[in-house]
Every structure is written in C-alpha cells, then in structure tokens.
C-alpha cells in the first residue's frame, strides 16, 4: 500500500499540548516537513521561546536551545556565529519578537544574520492568559484591554514584518496564514524558502504566520479561521513583503 501521509521524521512521536484549533501544531508540522525535505535534520538547531510554544523542544526531533523571552535572535546569532555550518531557526510569538525582543530582532535582521525566524502572530499573549500583544488589533478585547484596544491609549498594532523588511540585512520577508488548506500550503512554501535563504547564506529571513488562537479569541476554531480572513489580514496583509534572494521560485 502506498503511504500518502505520515509523521515527518523531524517531529517526535509526541502529542501536542496545544488547544484545539491552535495554529502552533500546524506550523510545527510544516517546519518539520521542510526540514525533512531539505535533508537538514542533522544540522538544525531550533530556538523556541517562552510562551505557549515553550515545549516546542518536546516536539521537534532536532537539537533545541530554549531562549529567554525575546532573545531568540541574539541566541541564534551566537549559535550561528560559533558554528556557521549549523542551520538555526527561531520560533517566536508576537510578544516575544515584536515587543520584548524588538531590538534583538531588528538588529539581527540588520546585520543580515544567516538565521531563519518563524514569527507566530496571533494578536494575543496566549500562555499568560490572553493579554494584549503588540499586534492586538484596534478594538480587540483582551484581558488587559477589556474595553477593546484604544488607539489613544495603547497605540496601533505593530507591523513588525514591514519594519524588518526595511533593514537591509533582511533578504526575505513574507506574511502568511494557516487558516485554510491553500494558506497552509503557501505557509509551507514560505518556510521552505526562509530555510533555503539561510542554506544559501544570503541573509536574514522571516516568515510571519497569522495563527488562530480560538481559546483567547473566545471563538470556535472555524470562527477563528474566518476572523483571520475578515479582520486580521486586513491589518496584516498577506503576501510577499520583501525578496532579495534572487531566487523567486524557491520553496
């Protein structure tokens, strides 16, 4: 019998702890598939963050180094500088990459560090219980914006990928979503290209993934997919933001 679907080699046979409908599980699987397809499992070091995905190291079957909150890009820089042969990726949430770790991310990108950043944007702090994220939308209710995010008080949601794209060391930046089979396929393609960018030694690559958090959005998984289409992707438009890889078809 022909096997058409199986667990990627780069995922351990473990059960994800994520909530039903959470995007982390999907993105984990996509990264593992990409690592398998590129044949780099023995060279990869992953840098997971604090947050819901802190246990990512229990799922990926590659070397994993826990990072302090927001420091992923700096940790990955040290790892890559010490051992340029390894393939380093960070896995970071919106609080991690776009709030506490803004400086580390911007400067790693600007230096053109040969690392790959996977940026999960779900517009909320998940693990701590649903507080406002830097990417929380205007009028979105969270536990720390119980009346909705107010422009006059909390300011605008931050478009981190566009900021990163302005740095000259960032050569590939794309925003995708995991709220439909088509978007999931595009996300995988982007992740693959972001790893390929590092393999080719071209510079910093970042993929922002709009990812559902039904638990903290107080929605059903189906509603959360719809919300990404109807609301979230209006603030964070999907698509290629920057590609200076000279490799338009990779991935």
């Amino acid at each position, binding site marked *: 019998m022909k096997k058409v679907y199986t667990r990627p080699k780069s995922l351990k046979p473990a059960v994800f702890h994520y909530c039903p409908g959470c995007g982390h599980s999907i993105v984990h699987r996509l990264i593992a598939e990409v690592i398998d397809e590129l044949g780099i*499992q*023995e*060279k*990869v*070091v992953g*840098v997971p963050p*604090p947050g819901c995905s*802190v246990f990512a*190291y*229990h799922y*990926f*079957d*590659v*070397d*994993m*180094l*826990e*990072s*302090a909150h927001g*420091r992923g890009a*700096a*940790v*990955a*820089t*040290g*790892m*890559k*500088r*010490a*051992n340029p*042969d*390894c*393939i380093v990726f960070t896995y970071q949430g919106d609080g991690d990459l776009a709030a506490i770790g803004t*400086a*580390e991310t*911007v*400067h790693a990108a600007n*230096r053109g560090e040969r690392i790959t950043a996977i940026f999960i944007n779900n517009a909320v702090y998940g693990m701590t219980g649903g507080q406002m994220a830097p990417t929380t939308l205007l009028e979105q209710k969270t536990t720390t914006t119980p009346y909705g995010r107010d422009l006059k008080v909390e300011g605008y949601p931050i478009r981190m990928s566009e900021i990163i794209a302005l740095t000259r060391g960032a050569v590939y930046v794309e925003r995708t979503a995991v709220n439909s089979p088509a978007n999931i396929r595009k996300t995988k393609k982007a992740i693959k290209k972001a790893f390929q960018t590092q393999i080719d030694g071209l510079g910093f690559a970042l993929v922002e993934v709009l990812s559902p958090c039904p638990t903290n959005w107080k929605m059903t998984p189906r509603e959360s997919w719809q919300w990404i289409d109807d609301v979230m992707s209006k603030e964070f438009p999907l698509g290629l933001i920057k590609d200076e890889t000279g490799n338009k078809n990779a991935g």
Partner: protein
Amino acid sequence: MPEVLMNGNSAIAEAAIRAGCQCYFGYPITPQNELSEYMALNLSRRKGCSFVQAESELAAINMVYGASAAGVRVMTSSSSPGISLKQEGISYLAANELPCVIVNMSRGGPGLGSISAAQSDYFQATRGGGHGDYRTIVLAPSSVPELAEFTHRAFDLADKYLVPVMILGDGMLGQMMEPVAFHHEAPEVFSVRSRSLRGAKGRPSRIFKTFTSKPAELEELNWSLFRRYQLIQKEETTSEAFLTDDARLIIVAFGIAARIARGAIKTVRAEGLKVGMLRPITLWPFPTEAVKEAAKKTKQFLVFEMNMGQMVDDVKLALEGKGKVSFYGRPGGVIPTPSEVARVISRIYVQEGLT
C-alpha cells in the same frame, strides 16, 4: 615570551585569545572599551572566530548563551550598569550549565554612577546576581599580570565545572598599564565541548532548557547545581596571605583595594605596627576557612573596600562572632591612597590597644 607593557583591558583580551576564546560579544561602556576594541582588532579576523558589537548588553549575553551552547569558548565584558543588564542571561547560562567568561570592569554606582574604579558590585557578583538559586565563580585580580593569568584560569574553571565565571576587576585595573607576560600560545585548532548543540548528527537530538512545569524536577536541578557549588567551594577557594604570621591586625581586601592596602601595610610596618593582609582571590567561593584560620592568630580585622561595606558581611559570617571587625570604605569611584589607608590602620591599631 618577554614582558610587554599593556593596559589591563587589553591584557584580558590577549589572554582570552590565547586561552582559545572563539567568540566575543560586547557593547561599549567605559571603562572597559579597550577590551572590546582589542577583540575587534585581534579576534574578529581569526579563523573560526567571531566578534559582534551587539545592540545591547542583553543581546550580547544572549549571544554568549547561544555560542556557549554550540560548545565553544566565549566571553563578554562590560562595566557595572551593563553587568546589571546581563544578569538575565547569566541566570539562564547557570541554569543550563553553560560555561562562559564574563568580565566586569566595575565602576561607581548606583545608577549611571561614575566611570571611576569602584568595588560596589561585590554583592551582585558573589550572590549570583540574577534571579534564582545559583552562583558564579568570581575571580578578583589585583594587577595586570593577574588579569591575564586569571582570564586563562576563568576559561578552565568554566569548562571544568560548566558554570559562568566572572572576573571582577574595576576601572583602575582595566585602564592602568603594567608589564605582563603571556605563558600560553593561542591554539591553532579549537576544541568543541562534547556537551553542545551542533545538530543531531549520529546521535539523538538534544534539548538545553531550563523551564519545567514540575517543581520537583527543578528542585533536582537546584540540588545538582548546589552539589557542584559545594565541590567548587572545596576545590577552588583561593586567597593570599601577606605578612600575617605575626600580625595583630589583619586587613581583608580584594582586587585593587588589596593593592592599595599592601602599600599601606608597608608604611605602617616601617613604623613597627604588626599588620598583615588576607586577600580573597576567589570572592565566590569566599575563603571562609582562611579567615577562620587567621582568627586563630588575632581577633582584630579591618575590612577595606572601595564601597560602603559588602565583603565585610562575608568576613563577619566567616568569623561567626570570633573576632572584631572594623570597616573602612570609599565608595562612588573615589580611589584612596595608600597613605590614607595607612592612617586608618594606625588609628584602629592604637584604638584597639594593639601597640
């Protein structure tokens, strides 16, 4: 190799390169900039080496964390306010049993303070400094040759015990020039620690992590770290005794303050006062036994520090009430002269009826 005239900061950098340091990550701050600059000039282009001027001390220490996890010898340096920023990373390094060398060329504080030499980071250095139950080995050199020697020792100790090691100097040690000889040649080929993350080739994948949802699991890590710390206390505690055999008053001082005290002791000795010095070389582990031993000869101690009194607590803890401890301190970056300290010694000597 013949002696060369060098400032302390550069001597540390040269010694680090010769000790096989492969990566250096730092952020500019006075009075330690010569160290980073020396690394930029002499380490950055070496084969297999990397130098990054980081965007902050936070980033620098987290680069250290990443490089240490990759199994190479790595260091960072800063001065007091920058060392405060590094504490987050030092805590993670300690928790993950990742060796590295951290240099603090300390300056006056609190706050932005002054750029002049001070010893007011003693508490921060010897108590771990960041959050959680951990310690770092702290070496306190008092001359440029010692800065070089202790840098080499710091790398060896870090690798031996898988702990961060701090060299606690000060702005004066960093800036002053002295003849120094280097006794090691820089390695041609670097060795990589086997406990490292470099991709799971030919072995199962590894995780370096500190978080656990199980308190009992973390307690086990705490116990394991503290068993190692006990071993370090047993094996690595160092101090130097200076003219203590017949001393009626023993000065306890570390680092540059010990250098000043040494001059003061020579002055008062010439006047017939029987004064000696016990100089802790490892600040953590603190030479408790050496203090106890000294208390068998005299009960009179004078702790001299360039702060408001920090190590003095450790001296009192070591004595457990079995000695009288006086204190003299100059904080804020003020550097007292040997003659000033000699006057203090003489006064206490007379007041305590030791003549």
